[in-house]
């Protein structure tokens, strides 16, 4: 599974992209986030307030309840500020 982090999430976590293999019982993004929070302080800080974070699964906006599977691309980022 490919994970991407943008803007301040990338800065807190320390990398912009990584490949991970979460345990098979993790079935949705919410479970993935909980698992990631256990990987270190940077992750815990980045995911402290889930209301301030947007996410996409395979490059489409999704919610925390979105199912995930091996091979997915999951991205986490703050609300967008383009234009």
């Amino acid at each position, binding site marked *: 599974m490919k994970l991407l982090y943008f*803007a301040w999430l990338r800065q807190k976590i320390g990398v912009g992209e990584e490949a991970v293999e979460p345990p098979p019982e993790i079935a949705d993004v919410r479970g993935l986030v909980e698992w990631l929070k256990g990987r270190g302080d940077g992750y815990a800080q980045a995911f402290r307030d889930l209301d301030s974070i947007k996410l996409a699964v395979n490059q489409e906006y999704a919610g925390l309840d979105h199912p995930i599977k091996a091979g997915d691309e999951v991205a986490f980022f703050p609300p967008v500020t383009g234009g």
Partner: protein
Amino acid sequence: MAIRVQREDFDVGRELDALSVGNRRVGGLCSFVGLVRDMNEVAGAKSGVEAMTLEHYPGMTEKQLEEIEAEAHRRWPLEASLIIHRYGRMEPGERIVLVATASPHREAAFEACHFLIDWLKTKAPFWKVEETDDGAARWVEARDSDDAAAARWAEKAGGSL
């Protein structure tokens, strides 16, 4: 229909000319150009902006812009449209984004252009970090007013033409 995500600046006049060349059904062109401004207001306090850097999500950005553009064409009778969005470091006065629409009639061109920039601001995955005159770098926060501007278009079933 065209979208471009690029580091380089663009020539507004040339882009607008290209939008209607050879198409005599076009009666009006509308464009919006977004620029880096030298001032931002955070929690009521003004700070000078020296520069900003835009990053984006390659792949998803293009998908989102294409979807937004396709939605505009579903809602309004457009002959052509163009979205150019830059990324990278830019200083005040530099162009960030160009949205342009061409239609037989001005109302459709105006409305579709407004729609495109409003939706782009809340849907296209770009993020800005500002360098301020006190030497700090600060991630720009999303504005509720931008969400409200985008939501107006969600309430409309379609364009007026």
